[in-house]
């Protein structure tokens, strides 16, 4: 901190440039008398050298050193050019200062021009003014340094947060050739998230979610949603259970009204079925190979997190899967991308670009079109596009879907255990039991968890017991163009009215000398409905003996 002068003002460092004459000595004595510190030089070149070295608060320059003969003052101009960070006042001294001379000095870069000898009273007053100015400048510099330090800290935290978020949001497993997506954040963090995950039965579950707003707060909104979806999809929960749980997660974990627009899709190629639940996202579309829009799924629900789960209809819309289709999902970011004239890209333009490109080039075509539309401007909102190739998914299902005999376990004789469970009618409503059983069995018996067929076994047994046994649903309802929806609606209606029951689940684990068996029996016990399904799954290194009345599966 500079010391104060005798007058109590800030002590200045003054670069004094001039020839030794009585008038300059007057200025020098005056400055010293006031307590300011002087750096004295005798030429323009020396002034420039000492300026860089001492970084003065004020330069006083005698124009007698800078006579170019053409009324210009190149030495003053050169001094002014030196100061790049802060403004250092330059005062000129001259004999017989008139308006022309003062103007020339100011144009050369000076802030003021004083007549020699100086008027002591005025000169002192101006020095006080400069001291105040330098003090204010120092305060601003300190503030700027604080802001810079704060900015650097925030930048470092943002870098760190991004690394964590990127890791947490790395939601997609590898679905090369089947599913691809593009997310362009409007700012450093994306409030959009895309998740694509296979369930144990081989179906593919997709989430395209758009958290309210954008940036970090929106990214924090979608983070728990994406992670919950991924975990539940891996366990095989259906879309209705996923919708309910994600809505509950948002209502429970996020601040009020931080809702999330979301599209959830289940593609079950083995059954030739697609299920879509769209709450708050633009309509997703199915294109054929030629670029025709053959199906759309408009938003028919409120976004997730707006109302309590009990007020939300979690049932997806079910349709037959088009084997040649390409499903396109997007958030509103692409539609709302604004160009330099303030015009939005718009949904019609987006669909035009999609329809005009070959299926394999559609993602890139939209990416190029949106980037061109923005022309370097940042997007208003995060831009997300995701595409699913139905033909590739059908091919995957036919060739890659896990076979029933995927794993040959070592012969093991683990301890025996029994599980017996009865689910009364009220419990059966709104309960997605298969993933719960799968989770339980997976935890108690790692061998079960490692077999991809195990989920299908449970699902078939449970569905048969519930839907054909207890609900007396006719599987032929599934036939016809709207069969999936008819069946689902009928199932839901009968389930809600269900008074009969229970569904009984019995699982017994038996380890013998030659093999290990898991005996699963799931049956409905309503009057008039036979206990339809029973199964035993033998886990053995050699061919297992079929259990009486069951279906043997080698895991």
């Amino acid at each position, binding site marked *: 901190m500079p010391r104060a002068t005798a007058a109590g003002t800030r002590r200045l460092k003054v670069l004094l440039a001039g020839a030794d004459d009585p008038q300059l000595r007057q200025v020098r004595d005056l400055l010293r008398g006031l307590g300011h510190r002087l750096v004295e030089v005798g030429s323009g070149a020396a002034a420039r050298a000492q300026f860089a070295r001492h970084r003065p608060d004020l330069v006083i320059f005698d124009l007698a050193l800078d006579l170019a003969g053409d009324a210009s003052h190149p030495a003053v101009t050169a001094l002014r050019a030196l100061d790049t960070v802060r403004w250092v006042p330059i005062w000129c001294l001259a004999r017989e200062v008139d308006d022309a001379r003062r103007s020339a000095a100011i144009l050369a870069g000076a802030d003021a021009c004083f007549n020699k000898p100086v008027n002591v009273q005025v000169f002192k007053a101006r020095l006080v003014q400069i001291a105040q100015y330098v003090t204010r400048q120092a305060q601003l510099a300190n503030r700027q340094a604080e802001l810079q330090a704060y900015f650097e800290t925030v930048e470092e935290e943002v870098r760190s947060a991004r690394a964590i978020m990127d890791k947490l949001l790395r939601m997609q497993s590898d679905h090369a050739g089947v599913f691809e997506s593009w997310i362009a954040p409007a700012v450093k963090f994306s409030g959009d998230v895309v998740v694509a995950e296979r369930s144990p039965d081989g179906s593919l579950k997709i989430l395209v979610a758009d958290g309210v*707003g954008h940036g970090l707060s929106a990214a924090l909104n979608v983070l728990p949603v994406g992670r919950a979806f991924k975990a539940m999809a891996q366990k095989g929960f259906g879309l209705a259970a996923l919708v309910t749980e994600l809505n509950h997660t948002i209502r429970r974990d996020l601040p*009020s009204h931080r809702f999330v627009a979301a599209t959830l899709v289940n593609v079950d190629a083995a059954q030739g079925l697609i299920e879509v639940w769209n709450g708050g996202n633009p309509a997703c579309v199915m294109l054929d190979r030629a670029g025709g829009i053959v199906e759309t799924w408009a938003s028919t629900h409120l976004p997730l997190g707006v109302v309590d789960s009990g007020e939300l209809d979690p049932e997806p819309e079910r349709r037959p899967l088009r084997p040649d289709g390409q499903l396109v999902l997007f958030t509103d970011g692409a539609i709302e991308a604004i160009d330099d004239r303030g015009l939005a890209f718009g949904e019609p333009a987006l669909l035009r670009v999609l329809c005009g490109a070959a299926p394999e080039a559609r993602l890139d075509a939209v990416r190029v079109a949106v980037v061109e539309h923005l022309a370097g401007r940042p997007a208003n909102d995060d831009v997300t596009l995701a595409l699913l190739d139905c033909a590739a998914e059908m091919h995957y299902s036919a060739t890659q879907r896990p076979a029933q005999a995927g794993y040959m376990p070592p012969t093991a004789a683990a301890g025996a255990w029994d599980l017996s469970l009865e689910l009364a009618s009220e419990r059966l409503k709104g309960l997605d039991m298969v993933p719960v059983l799968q989770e339980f069995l997976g935890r108690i018996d790692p061998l079960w968890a490692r077999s991809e067929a195990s989920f299908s076994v449970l699902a078939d047994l449970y569905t048969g017991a519930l839907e054909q046994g207890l609900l007396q649903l006719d599987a032929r309802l599934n036939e016809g163009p709207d069969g999936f929806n008819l069946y689902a609606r009928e199932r839901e209606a009968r389930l809600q009215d269900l008074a009969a029951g229970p569904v009984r689940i019995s699982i017994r684990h038996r380890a013998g000398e030659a093999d290990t068996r898991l005996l699963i029996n799931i049956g409905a016990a309503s009057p008039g409905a036979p206990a339809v399904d029973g199964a035993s799954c033998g886990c053995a290194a050699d061919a297992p003996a079929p259990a009486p009345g069951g279906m043997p599966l080698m895991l």
Partner: protein
Amino acid sequence: MNVNVNHINGQARLELRGRFDFTSHRGFKQAYEAAFAASGVSELVVDMGNVEYLDSSALGMLLLLRDKGKALSKPVSLANCAGSVRDVLRVANFDKLFTLQ
């Protein structure tokens, strides 16, 4: 965004003008809180006729307003929703939450 408030026969009418986005939060909240607090106000109408743009943050603000109205038993409705504003409200299915005049 600018907000003008008119009171007619117990109805507070908030006329919005401009871009209704995350920057509007404070002004919008102050306007509807003052409108609800004014004596004799029994319902509130948000006139969207001059809204040029509506983002998801604005939808969140409308939800907050709806909650406030419910807590005070003063119904909230939206008026003159057209063009892109209507499209955004429709996609979000806000017609299930608000009366659209």
